[in-house]
């Protein structure tokens, strides 16, 4: 179907990028959950000396021997990392950095050695470094597809084992499962994907084909199966977009475009994923902050009225601003919805509580003072230490908790500072629309 639109090269690139996207997306999930995102980076760099040695030994640059070489080098690298972390004081980050740079450095040594050889200049091994997707031939794509199918089938076969490795390897080991061998299997699979990607995106960017789609998928779900499918989808989509973009725009390299597309998906996911999206939690935080400010204003009006013996007198705005060091704008912003809900009455620059507002304010004050009393009685905190804590708790306590506190404390009339605790009937508010408008859900 694609033959009519795309050249052979473009078709190969498209297929290669898609295969890589799917397999990288799947395996990346396990690397991400095991907090081994950067192992892929080390394995990719470590593959270089393996590829070079394989070429030196066999003199062939057919995909299979090079793959075996990369696989062997990747395994050696992961064993060195494991041994250094387990049996010396070297920490994992250093171990990965050391293996990555030393193996790669040695690979460069071998590469320059090969380039001196009579046959070396034509070896084309350096395309593995940066990835030149355009050099993918049909034979490469077939090998990639076979390897990817093998890797994905292995994941399907050992899904349960890999899952427990990702989430609770200690528990699994205590059940007698051979976690060491399963870890080795995962490393083997990661090396496979890395080798798949060398020619398409290059050594440096392989880590992104593993981590970025998985990190993006993680934002949308708490379920591993869903995450794997989503990650594979994001990887494939990035691959397709990258391949098509580089085919249609001159001098646009495939690998980097794939990475940029996946990164863009990640940013969108981080911001707007339904549960974990940072934008939504920002919105939720602001909503709570505003509710707290409104409740504080009601409470301030209540306390002024309490001190003056009447709630009927209008309280001037400067006095309210002085209580919490608020700007006029912030006070006005808190007062506006309260006026709209009929809890506060405003005349020019001054305001006072309505009947309904007095009840709502009494509810907040009641929570505050009961909590203060609870802290002094039950936790035996001194009474001058409890106000700050109560300032926070008054906005979080549910009516049920407040009633329970009241009962536990024996329906006390006054707080630790001797101020009256408003009785429940004074704090009873209607559940009509007015209250709902004033009290946004958390």
């Amino acid at each position: 179907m694609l033959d009519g639109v795309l050249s052979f090269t473009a078709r190969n690139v498209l297929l290669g990028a898609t295969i890589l996207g799917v397999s990288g997306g799947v395996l990346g999930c396990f690397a991400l959950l095991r907090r081994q995102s950067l192992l892929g980076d080390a394995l990719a760099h470590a593959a270089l000396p393996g590829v070079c040695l394989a070429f030196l030994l066999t003199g062939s640059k057919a995909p299979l021997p090079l793959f075996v070489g990369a696989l062997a080098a990747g395994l050696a690298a992961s064993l060195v990392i494991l041994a250094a972390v387990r049996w010396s004081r070297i920490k994992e980050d250093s171990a990965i950095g050391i293996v990555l740079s030393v193996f790669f450095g040695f690979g460069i040594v071998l590469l320059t050695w090969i380039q001196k050889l009579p046959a070396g200049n034509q070896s084309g091994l350096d395309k593995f470094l940066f990835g030149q997707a355009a050099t993918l031939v049909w034979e490469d794509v077939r090998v990639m597809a076979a390897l990817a199918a093998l890797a994905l089938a292995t994941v399907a076969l050992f899904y349960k084992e890999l899952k427990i490795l990702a989430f609770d390897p200690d528990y699994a080991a205590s059940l007698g499962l051979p976690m060491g061998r399963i870890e080795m299997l995962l490393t083997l699979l990661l090396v496979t994907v890395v080798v798949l990607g060398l020619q398409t995106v290059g050594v440096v960017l392989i880590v992104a084909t593993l981590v970025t789609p998985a990190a993006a998928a993680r934002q949308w779900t708490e379920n591993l199966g869903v995450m794997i499918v989503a990650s594979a989808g994001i990887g494939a989509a990035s691959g397709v977009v990258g391949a098509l973009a580089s085919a249609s725009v001159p001098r646009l390299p495939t690998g980097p475009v794939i990475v940029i597309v996946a990164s863009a998906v990640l940013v969108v996911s981080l911001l707007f994923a339904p549960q974990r999206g940072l934008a939504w939690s920002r919105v939720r935080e602001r909503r709570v902050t505003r509710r707290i400010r409104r409740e504080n204003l009601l409470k301030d009006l209540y306390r002024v009225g309490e001190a003056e013996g009447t709630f009927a007198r209008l309280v001037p705005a400067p006095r309210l601003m002085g209580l919490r060091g608020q700007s006029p704008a912030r006070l006005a912003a808190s007062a506006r919805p309260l006026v709209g809900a009929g809890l506060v009455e405003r005349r020019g620059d001054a305001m006072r509580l309505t009947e309904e507002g007095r009840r709502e304010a009494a509810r907040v004050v009641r929570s505050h003072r009961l909590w203060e009393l609870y802290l002094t009685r039950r936790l035996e905190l001194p009474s001058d230490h409890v106000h700050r804590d109560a300032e926070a708790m008054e906005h979080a306590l549910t009516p049920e908790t407040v009633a329970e506190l009241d009962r536990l404390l024996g329906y006390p009339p006054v707080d630790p500072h001797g101020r009256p605790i408003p009785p429940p009937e004074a704090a009873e508010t209607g559940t009509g629309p007015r209250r709902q408008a004033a009290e946004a859900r958390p």
Partner: protein
Amino acid sequence: MSPTLAILLVAGAVSASCAIVGTFLVLRRMALLGDAISHAVLPGIVIAFFLTGRRAPLPMVIGAGVLGVLTVFLVEMFHRSGRLKEDASIGVVFPALFSLGVILISRYAAQVDLDLDCVLYGEIAYAPWDLLFVGDASWGPKALWVNTGTLVANALLVGLFYKELKVTTFDPGLAAALGVSPVLIHYLLMSAVSVTVVGAFESVGAILVVAMLVVPPATAYLLTDRLGAMLALGVGFGLASAGGGYALARWWDVSIAGAMATVSGLIFAAALVGSPRYGVVAKLAARRRLGGRLAGQLLLLHLAETAAPAATLQQRFGWSERRLRRTTERLVRRGLVERRNGALALTAAGAAAVARGPGAQLAHPLAEASGELAPSGGLARAQEPADGSV
């Protein structure tokens, strides 16, 4: 200046300045941030190149420095948001920035005189011929000036802020209590890493930079518990890698940067295996000794209840015949256990040792064990995390 001398001086300056900042990266477990920065500065270099239109060192260093700090900032932002772990944050940030750089270079390749190969694995062999001209006078290799500059800057940084770097590295809480801002020092250090990386970048390539940042300090970390000694050893190993690598490269006629990384790896491997205190051999031997001692104590305690034939004991503890024989022989040599009527039994001395109490019996090797796993004092103590993940 002869080319050989110029190359050796450039490599020496690079390795020394990398080792100085790398020491703190290794101790702060941020070695991979060095790796990330060394790749992520690429777009900074390219953009600086576009803005100035030539390969002027100073704008490039500034552009790369900005990108380096941006990398650190982005990694921390993702990490702090709680949505990504630290390793994943690093793993998504630097490839994205590197990709941006590669795309910029590819799209505007005609205008950009930057070679991607050189940037990644560097060609220090060209350094002697890339000269700095002031007016018409040649002032020697440009790379030598740049890297000597970063070496001096790093030495000054560590010299001036030694105490601050030390306290924020080992005990950020204490640092904050003393009024030293860990965040400020962190960004200062990261700026130094960025500048070092970009200074070294063009002459030796990103990968050798990572090798020089991480490998010599990690080698030193295997050999000492003191910060001052670690810095000195790190610089020493860096210089040795540079010199040895150059010799190797001349001998085999291969990439100089690659050979330097290879030699640093060989030195590290030697320390990893042979370090008297923290090496693999020492650690395995200590573990073996400890296992032997615990087995001996276990056997003593068991024999204190009843004498038993070897076969029973072997079954009871699930030991191999060899292990039981070795354990028994040690105890027999110490005169604590003897063979009596085909069974093993405590001697009077053995009974006395057990009588000192199982608590005393077991406390000794365990106390020693914790001493071996978490050496007290110096770097080690500050480095071992409280959760005991040794």
